[in-house]
């Protein structure tokens, strides 16, 4: 995972509430059993003129030349609701997004973002001047809008450490393998029925 510290980039405003993961990556676009080859299907239902077509719909924000190369997505509340498919985050990451700014995140989607190096910035995107590049400083937990105003955001320490360090959660947990084994041993006596 690529570590994240400070990013200054164009932010594409897709400020609709309840953008669900079916919208981010429609099921029909999840053709392979891997985690790659998904960027093309990102927002396919909105991005192209017709189902199955690859002709860009000029009215969709990501097809607007002003937002070419955007690495930050501004979204509405409850972004990433719906299906838990991590493909939504893989598609966003493959397309080039490194951060999402939204008033609120679906909890599963938020966890998927953190595990794939995308910073979930919980700020109402309507309040941000994105008329020009904006900066996200993760160590300081601030977003600097295009007009230079700093806005602080909250993120839990675990997510922050994983994102900044580009850490793999499994490796982190496996350092505690002996502790987990001891816990299971004792728990098996307490709750034998839980062990098959």
């Amino acid at each position, binding site marked *: 995972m690529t570590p994240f510290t400070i990013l200054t980039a164009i932010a594409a405003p897709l400020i*609709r*509430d*309840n953008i*669900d993961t*079916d*919208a981010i990556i*429609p*099921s*029909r*676009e*999840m*053709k*392979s*059993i*891997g*985690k790659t080859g998904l960027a093309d299907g990102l927002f396919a*239902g909105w991005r192209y003129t017709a*189902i199955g077509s690859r002709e860009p719909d000029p009215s969709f924000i990501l097809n607007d030349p002003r937002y070419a190369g955007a690495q930050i997505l501004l979204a*509405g*509340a*409850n972004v990433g*609701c*719906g*299906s*838990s*498919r*991590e493909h939504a*985050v893989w598609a966003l990451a493959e397309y080039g997004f490194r951060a999402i700014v939204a008033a*609120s995140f*679906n*909890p*599963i989607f938020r*966890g*998927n973002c953190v*595990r*794939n190096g995308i910073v979930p910035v919980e700020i109402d995107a309507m309040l941000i001047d994105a008329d020009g590049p904006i900066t996200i400083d993760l160590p300081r937990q601030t977003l600097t809008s295009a007009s230079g105003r700093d806005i602080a955001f909250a993120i*839990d*320490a*675990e*997510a922050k450490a994983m994102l900044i360090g580009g850490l793999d*959660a*499994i490796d*982190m*947990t*496996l350092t*505690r*393998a002996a*502790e*987990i084994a001891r*816990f*299971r041993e004792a*728990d098996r006596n*307490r*709750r*034998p*029925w*839980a*062990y*098959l």
Partner: protein
Amino acid sequence: MTPRTAFEKIWADHLVADLGDDTGLLLIDRILLHERTGGVALNSLAEAGRTVAAPTQVFATMDHVVDTRPGRTDTTMMPTGTRFIAATRAAAHAAGLTLFDLDDPRQGIVHVISPELAIVLPGLTLVCPDSHTCSQGALGALAWGIGSTEAEHALATNTLRVGKPKTMRVTVTGRLGAGVTAKDLALHLLDRFGSSGAKGHVVEYAGEAVRALDIEARLTLCNMATEFSAFSAFIAPDEVTFDYLRGRAYAPEGAEWDRAVENWRGLVTDAGAMFDAELTVDAADVAPMVSWGTSPQQAVPLGRPVPDHDAIAGRDTREAYDRALAYMGLKAGQAIEGLAIDAAFIGSCTNSRLSDLRRAAAILKGRRVADGVRAICVPGSTMVKAAAEAEGLDRVFRNAGFEWRESGCSMCFFAGGESFGVQERVISSTNRNFESRQGPGTRTHLASPETVAASAVAGRIADPRPIGA
């Protein structure tokens, strides 16, 4: 001792280590996989050179992309679906997991089979890379949906790193009226409190109306907690729960059963325990519901029209509201009851259990689906299908003009194969009415199985109560 919520007790029982900042390393008791996301997780795990730490506690099923037409094979309607099946099968065998394959009598939708096989038990932590895992909290477990990468973590380590969710209690006082179901209650909560209403919370459903629900209805209620943006849902285990689980395939037996039940009786919220949020609704206010828009919160009691934007302005932006109406081909103030439908669907992890099929069949008995309406019933599991057939429900559905299918998710979601048509209006017992959820451009109206059945017969969205289930 300070009074604790049931959730806090389960959390404490599973806390291997406190990782600080309200994050815990939690022991995971059960991991469920399906071919849509499970194969990816297993393969990625293997590629990283890691193994499944406790394969006997991991179960996989084939439900999402499998064909549900009679006489099915590995071939799917979704163009590349067969590869998902093959990959999951190979990976499950290699990892030594229990797999409920296509020809297994225990096969079915993951959230339907786990309770019926007693894979989920009270007090367990259970995860699955599927958002409707919250359904299984109906049995008194802490069950929640995760992503594939988290699934890999759980598989490799028997644990997850979890930010401690906030708690919410939703108390439903009184009793649901005749013909009013758990599905209507779920939609009522969404209409009233919005689809972010339980954002990130573990929701404990409590109160007389909830206690009065049987397990299948509790599963329906908890199923739609993800539509409520909850971390998970939970209903304290009680005699109804124990009666349901006793004797099922993976339930403990003999002395171990007795010991387990004794432990499970403690999994209730202590008097005086504090929740971060509390909601109370009166069951008498709940009526049969139907959704009109493209978010599950966009729902109204049957008989009520599409609300004006003013009435819900605090929740839906004007843009979202207009977009939903345009997609659904509706106008503000238009009646929902009486809208002509093209199709009716009974299935999904929300409403495809035996009691759901029984209630729908009671309406369909001796009646026919209206001309021009395509009607499909997909039992939630192969066991549900067999039980329904044993009591002749399949004949009731077939005689009424319903297709009677093999179990799976089927047209609950459009996987790229079979679907309803563009701008077709479908009344559906499923949980999501998002744009194109059931097919490109398809217009989905969520409702209870009895409303779906009554509507199929009428050819338009209809109240099931006059027919009287």
